[in-house]
């Protein structure tokens, strides 16, 4: 891991403290107040806030701009960047632009296919994949050069994140892919939402055996369930998501008005289990359009006050 970056998230992780990050989806519009409101809800409860980049291929305020709004409020953003919409020229340009605004964390992703979004007619880009985006940011940071080898006047010193989905197939490839991302330059990993804890533990065991947990900070992803319907939907309709049947039954087994409470309980149990797994250095809470619940979860999990 490079010592060049200077983000707070990096500082917390390198001190060996358990990090807490959350997600903030920018609005489908140009109103900054929406971002600020979400930021207010998260302030004091998390170390950094991931800002999604046109998630599920739906056009939203740009991740860079929303990150800038959060920065102004004193929150530390993790800028998510997907390779679906921008070629290598735009990606490198935006990485430098983002850093110039004070954005110090990046999460490199390929992005959901546009066919899932509201404008499926769009042409996708995918000029480079997430692996090469990680490598590009690392080269810009550590060698101070862009992809052409040109020496940059002031390199962007990003703390580099990548995603991992232990629940996607083929399972045996998932740890190899993690290793490739670490080799490419990932400093931290945020995982897909964890519901199948057995499979997650198996994946972590494999990662430990390969020595990967010594090389990268892994933050386990959680998403509180709101209802049995949501659990079923995530299992059946969301690509690469694995919600085991007993969990769906557990959500369905409580009265409707208790469903939210049960979802939060499950989330807290998951966080407690994550803290006991060797190699897990933090939790990433993705409360989709439900940012107001994050504070309660962090508090109930005993993760406040934040450093």
């Amino acid at each position, binding site marked *: 891991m490079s010592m060049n970056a200077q983000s707070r998230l990096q500082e917390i992780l390198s001190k060996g403290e358990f990090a807490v990050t959350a997600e903030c989806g920018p609005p489908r519009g140009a109103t900054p107040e929406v971002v600020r409101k979400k930021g207010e809800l998260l302030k004091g409860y998390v170390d950094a806030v991931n800002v999604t980049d046109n998630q599920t291929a739906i056009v939203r305020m740009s991740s860079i701009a929303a990150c800038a709004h959060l920065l102004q409020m004193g929150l530390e953003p993790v800028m998510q960047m997907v390779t679906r919409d921008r070629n290598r020229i735009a990606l490198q340009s935006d990485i430098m632009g983002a850093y110039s605004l004070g954005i110090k964390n990046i999460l490199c992703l390929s992005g959901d*296919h*546009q*066919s899932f979004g509201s404008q*499926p*007619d*769009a*042409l*996708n880009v995918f000029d480079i994949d997430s692996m090469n985006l990680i490598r590009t940011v690392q080269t810009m940071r550590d060698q101070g050069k862009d992809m052409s080898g040109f020496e940059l006047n002031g390199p962007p010193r990003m703390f580099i994140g990548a995603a991992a989905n232990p629940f996607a197939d083929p399972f045996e490839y998932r740890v190899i892919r993690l290793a490739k991302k670490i080799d490419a330059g990932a400093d931290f990993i945020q995982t897909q939402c964890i519901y199948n804890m057995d499979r997650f533990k198996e994946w972590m065991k494999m990662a430990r055996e390969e020595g990967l947990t010594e090389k990268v900070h892994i933050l386990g992803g959680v998403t509180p369930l709101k209802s049995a319907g949501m659990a079923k939907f995530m299992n059946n309709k969301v690509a690469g998501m694995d919600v085991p049947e007993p969990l769906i039954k557990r959500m369905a087994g409580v009265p409707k008005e208790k469903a939210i409470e049960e979802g939060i309980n499950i989330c807290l149990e998951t966080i407690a289990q994550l803290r006991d797994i060797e190699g897990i250095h933090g939790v990433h809470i993705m409360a989709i359009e439900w940012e107001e619940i994050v504070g309660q979860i962090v508090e109930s999990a005993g993760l406040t006050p934040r450093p």
Partner: protein
Amino acid sequence: MIVAEQKPLSEIKEIIAPYKKILILGCGTCVKTCFAGGEDEVAVLASALRLACKKDGKEIEIEKLTIERQCEDEFIRESAPAVSRSEGVLSLACGAGVQALARRFAKTPVLPGVNTTFIGVMESQGIFTEECSGCGNCRLDIFGGICPVTRCAKKLLNGPCGGSQNGKCEINPDTDCAWQLIIDRLKALGQMDNLRKYIPPKNWRTSLSGGPRKLVREDHII
């Protein structure tokens, strides 16, 4: 036709390096027409490889065969005995041919001997140009039969950019400006009105961008 170009000998040597018995399999359709992988090219490549391997002191057995089409199982089957005698197949067909072979022969590595370049035509003897990108949503009717999606470097649908000069494209003085060609042709056809038409953003769902494509012809399924 699908236009392809044979890979450099040095690259082919590298690709076949792990094998001592190979079959060079030609295709008698598109790649034959563009001089990349027909019977003649199979023979020339076999000689060149034998010579190169001899020079390097490497033992190699090379068998030659050319079938009518490598993208159709009916013809692929003819190559089965020769394939079973080889450790690897160097296919001189387009990427579809290589994959069709791989699909049929589960245990034999199928290696590409050509680079598949584009869907095009032979403009004049030995000169091939790209004409179609298979976007799945053809509007050649309004563009006078000249495709801006393929032949304009920026895929512009509403007229030429500021880089069009003397009928040539800004990226290369040897490349025609597709829009110059479209305009000339629409003039000749008396369809200049088409130039005033506003063309909305293209629906790319039917292109590769929408994911790998599959065409189902119910009326032909047995």
